[in-house]
């Protein structure tokens, strides 16, 4: 079933989304359906639209009509755009955020979907299956694209809601990324309401907005949930379902949410752009039961080998779009890169195997940060690693050997953070910088990456 069919079965005045641009009913969302679907039938379309309401309308028109949809974040650095368009072989860009259009490898650029006019010919054949290309969250260089189908994206989505009060889904994520798209599609498929607060306001304002709009279902990373728990407005959210994803959920935040929202279901999910949704855990405890290894609840096979978690790929292809870089073995298993241990009938997460640091859902490669640190004239050597944080899960930490004595360290720390802040995304700048006389090396003579 394509997206349009879900919307078409709803009453026209049914509200599907409240967004910064207003209220989106089923009939408003389908208003331009035929014009857009016909104009873009068979095309490879890149979509970079900030407003989730407009996004739903455009995605609904494209699904089942376009050859492919490449979803791009409004926050995508402009210099990455040409490469992504090339990888996905896009021929049209729908963007309300991109200004530099002359140099893009495209035949058509529309700065707003309203500019799209249907072709004169009638009865255009819509292609039957549309590839959905989603960007990974890698923070080094150009994001990679993973190919999904609508079916693989909504595999675990519940189409029917339990009886009782209709759910209202809060959207705190970027809807163009895997986690946010899950929330958006969940609302469309179930015909329930999506509430998207303004993007550029403080978290307290967003939470107050969601509370006033009666948000009952909310999904966020554990780091975001800890921050939400610290807002006075959190107590006003009438939540019935709480979802955590993107990072390891520890017992403390699970217990805290259960205490603030005693009647809500608290669910943590394991998902990635590459693997899709792996499983969800509903018993309010961290980790997951070992029974999932034999009998996976969402039907996605899991296994542990060499202390690592492997998961069966549910994406359409197991290589990144437009590249020959694979992310799974030939029989479809993906090495998640997560170290796990089995204890007391439960599988627990220990952190990342590669030294890759997950900061509130953003992935940071220590080598990149080390390279920048070493380019500072006062730095002799540097080691970057993840440090456990009770607030953020993990933060980036650095040990730095200077060319001169650090003094009390305060001024030098400020200087290095300023230097790094001008060259790296905020998540990559080491939160903790300590000055040492020498770096620990491991058995192979490389800088040790063990988290400390």
């Amino acid at each position, binding site marked *: 079933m394509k997206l349009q069919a879900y919307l078409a079965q709803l009453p026209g005045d049914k509200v599907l989304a409240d967004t910064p641009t207003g209220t989106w009913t089923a009939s408003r969302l389908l208003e331009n359906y035929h014009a857009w679907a016909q104009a873009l039938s068979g095309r490879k379309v890149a979509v970079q639209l900030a407003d989730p309401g407009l996004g739903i309308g455009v995605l609904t028109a494209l699904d089942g009509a376009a050859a492919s949809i490449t979803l791009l974040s409004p926050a995508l650095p402009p210099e990455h755009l040409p490469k992504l368009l090339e990888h996905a072989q896009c021929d049209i860009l729908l963007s309300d955020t991109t200004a530099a259009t002359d140099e893009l490898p495209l035949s058509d650029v529309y700065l707003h979907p309203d500019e799209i006019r249907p072709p004169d010919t009638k009865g255009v054949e819509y292609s039957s299956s549309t590839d959905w290309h989603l960007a990974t969250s890698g923070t080094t260089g150009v994001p990679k694209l993973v190919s999904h189908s609508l079916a693989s994206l909504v595999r675990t989505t519940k189409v029917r809601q339990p009886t009782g009060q209709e759910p209202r889904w809060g959207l705190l994520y970027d809807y163009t990324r895997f986690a946010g798209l899950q929330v958006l599609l969940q609302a469309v498929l179930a015909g329930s309401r999506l509430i998207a607060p303004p993007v550029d306001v403080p*978290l307290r304002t967003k939470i107050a907005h969601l509370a006033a709009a009666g948000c009952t279902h909310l999904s966020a990373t554990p780091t*975001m949930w800890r921050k939400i*728990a*610290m*807002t*006075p407005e959190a107590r006003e959210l009438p939540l019935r379902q709480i979802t955590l994803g993107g990072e390891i959920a520890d017992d*403390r935040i699970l217990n805290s949410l259960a205490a603030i929202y005693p009647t809500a279901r608290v669910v943590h999910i394991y998902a990635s752009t590459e693997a899709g949704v792996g499983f969800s855990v509903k018993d309010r405890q961290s980790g997951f039961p070992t029974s999932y290894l034999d009998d996976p609840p969402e039907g996605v096979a899991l296994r542990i080998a060499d202390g690592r978690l492997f998961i069966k790929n549910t994406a359409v292809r197991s290589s990144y779009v437009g590249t020959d870089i694979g992310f799974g073995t030939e029989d479809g298993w993906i090495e998640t890169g997560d170290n796990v241990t089995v204890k007391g009938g439960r599988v627990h997460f220990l952190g990342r195997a590669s030294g890759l640091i997950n900061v509130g859902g953003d992935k940071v490669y220590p080598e990149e940060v080390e390279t920048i640190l070493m380019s500072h004239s006062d730095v002799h050597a540097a080691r970057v690693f993840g440090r456990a944080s*009770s*607030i953020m899960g993990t933060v980036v930490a650095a040990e730095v050997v200077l060319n001169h004595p650090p003094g009390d360290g305060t001024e030098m720390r400020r200087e290095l*953070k300023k230097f790094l802040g001008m060259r790296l995304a905020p998540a990559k700048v080491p939160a903790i910088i300590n000055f040492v006389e020498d770096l620990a090396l491991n058995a192979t003579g490389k800088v040790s990456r063990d988290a400390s």
Partner: protein
Amino acid sequence: MAADLKARIVKVFEDVFKEHTQATTAPSLNDDSVLLETGLDSLGFAILVIRLEEELGYDPFVLSSEAYYPQTFGDLIRFYEDNQPQ
């Protein structure tokens, strides 16, 4: 003792604030200041908690069995006082 602990927390807060936001002065805090409105983001707050652990030798967010997140600066001070290792 309590006044001393508060003074040490204020000092670490000021250091972290200036280092993390590149501001020259830190805001003055009272017990009713909402932590999320001090200008320190969640990464800044995570840094504050790690630096306080280095300074004071304990992290109440790890030690406390209570599933609690403080909202105001006063809540934070009390949380550190109540969870001091004996």
